[in-house]
């Protein structure tokens, strides 16, 4: 399911990252890799703050829809 549907505070495995190649690369550089874990910390109108590899990353809804967990 897309990341925006994940429950707050629940650690989940990243299964797939979609979106444009350039952006996907940027997300990978930030620590979003398939097989890695991600935890949603907070959500506001679909935008989420997640914990990935010990750093907090804010991503907008458009992007959160393309990360499958």
């Amino acid at each position, binding site marked *: 399911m897309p990341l925006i549907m994940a429950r707050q*505070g629940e650690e989940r495995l990243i299964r797939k990252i979609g*979106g444009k*190649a*350039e*952006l*996907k*690369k*940027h*997300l*990978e*550089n*930030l*620590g979003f*890799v*398939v*097989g*890695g874990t991600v935890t949603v*910390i*907070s*959500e*506001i*109108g*679909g*935008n989420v*703050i997640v*914990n*990935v*590899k*010990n*750093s*907090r*990353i*804010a*991503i*907008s*809804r*458009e*992007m959160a*829809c393309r990360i499958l967990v």
Partner: protein
Amino acid sequence: MPTKIALAGNPNSGKTTLFNALTGSNQYVGNWPGVTIEKKEGKLRSDTYKDITIVDLPGIYSLSPYTLEEVIARDYLITENPDAIINIVDGTNLERNLYLTTQLAELGIPMVVAVNMMDIVEKNGDRINLDKLSEKLGCPVIGISALRKAGITEAAEKAAELANKKVPMTPKHRFSDELEHAIESIEGLLGDRVEDKNKRWTAIKVFERDIKIMERLDLDDSLKERIENIIDGCETDMDDDSESIITNERYLYISSIIKDCYRRKSNKKMTTSDKIDRIVTNRWLALPIFALAMFAVYYLAVTTVGTWMTDWTNDVLFGEIIPPAMESFLDSIGTAPWLQSLILDGIIAGVGAVLGFIPQMLVLFLALALLEDCGYMARVAFIMDRIFRKFGLSGKSFIPMLIGTGCGVPGIMASRTIENERDRRMTIMVTTFIPCGAKLPVIALISGALFNGAWWVAPSAYFVGIAAIIFSGIILKKTRMFSGDPAPFVMELPPYHRPVAGNVLRSMWERGWSFIKKAGTIILLSTIVVWFASSFGIVDGRIVMVDDVNDGFLSKIGGAIAPVFAPLGWGQWQATVATITGLVAKENVVSTLGILYGFAEVAEDGFEIWGLLASSFTVLSAYSFLVFNLLCAPCFAAIGAIRREMNNTKWTLFAIGYQTLFAYAVSLSIYQLGMLFTGNGFGIGTAAAILIVALFLYLLMRPYRERPIEAASVQASM
């Protein structure tokens, strides 16, 4: 030639703090990613090593840049061949930070890894085995705390030593056999086109199909095809695209290192930052908290604390103390009357009017610096993203605007952190709508002199700025040039921490000082020009000093232009001149009014300096004057910044023209409709205002055309 040591690392990992500590510089440090947008150089302060230049680079997550300032850092590392690299790694976030380390290691440049924030790592009870890490990475690893200045000299001297010995970095890490095989084959095909020390890195970049590197290599087609075959083969075998293969392999390798070198105190609990984020970015509380914070900042700066200080400076220091003292001093040494007038009515009235507002600015900058340094401002970008997105900007546009509250020039430059060029242009165009520090005196003057310091005037100026941004966003987004969705928002949020007094005070002082400097230079000069132009005029065919400013040159010039602004409610030549001198620096609006209205009054009792000003404006025309000066073309310095960042004259002119027209239309509507509602009858101006409002509504409401069908359907399905 001096030895060059580059500081490279992730955004917000403490590069600039280290740079300041090593070189004794005073570069601006902030708690969000992307504070440094240009490379900066400084001399290493060391007894052992002389002539070493430290280069501070913008933060990067990888050597495949995503944003403009990342390109600056990468290009420097690759093309300018620094003699050594100090790779700063945030010890509290080892895994993600080492990702860049694995890439830097491949560049073949002598490298030292400095694990920063060791004090926090220890406080958290975590353990990093630095010796083991050094062994695994194949380069010296030194634990430091840039903030506490621990271990930094050691790190710098180690780097200098490596640079002098020219020990190239040879990465120890190996990828999986399939990938290694593919990379070796590419290395073989590249042959001696590439220097040995760069070979592995270049081969990896070729494997990733990096466009810039391919261009630089300029391979012939048959070779390209053979390389492509190797990549294709590997992609099929590993069932992923080449870039992701490399990324995954890097992270796999990093986890293998981390396992041996890093022990986390096993706490699965939420960190303090997470807890704060739960509240501050909560979907219901986020906006009210933000509005409250901004209101508090402006209320504090303009309406209460700042004003008490400013009132004292204006009324007592520049009202009762300095002018009479100066006057008696000038009298006692027998100065010529005209010189006395220049000093008292020109310089003191003008520069003093501006200096009086410095306390307010300092309070404003202090409050903003506190919010910045604790980490809240980065969250605001996130909170604002949902809203900004509705009118075509991304939350990242907020950071330039935020910096713009201090000064528009760095604000405009901060737009570099925005990835998408369209978004960036639009941000540049609207950033200066946010009242900058120099506009603060204008706001304070109007609210003080005409609204008796009403509590709502200063915050309203801020919200007028935001509204202008929102409307412009919607209107511009619907034009062909700006259509298209903004790039998705992705931004790292820094951890919250208690503001560091040094950082906050430096940030406040740096911004404040630039205004004080301006008061002593450009504004001083402007006041002299304004004084001359207003106190000399032609009487009976001769140029003489006039008693009444209304006979001066300036009055004639301003009077000729003033009708342009008459529909906005302030057709007096003084207001016109003030607006025009505001283009040189916005504080000039205040200093010019100070000279033109303060004239007679300062000498008398000095208390009611702004009485004359108040009598020549109505509440409505004053607000219209304020709004026009807030929104119209920014000062020349900011226009220059727009020109540099747009890198295009047409765009620059468009931006300036748009801002001025927009300001004119808004002020006209405010004044004319205000007049209508206060029962002043219907005139041509009212009709024009109604037309403008109708046009605005049309521009706001008209359907959004240019969106590509595919994007639109994705949007709809979400």
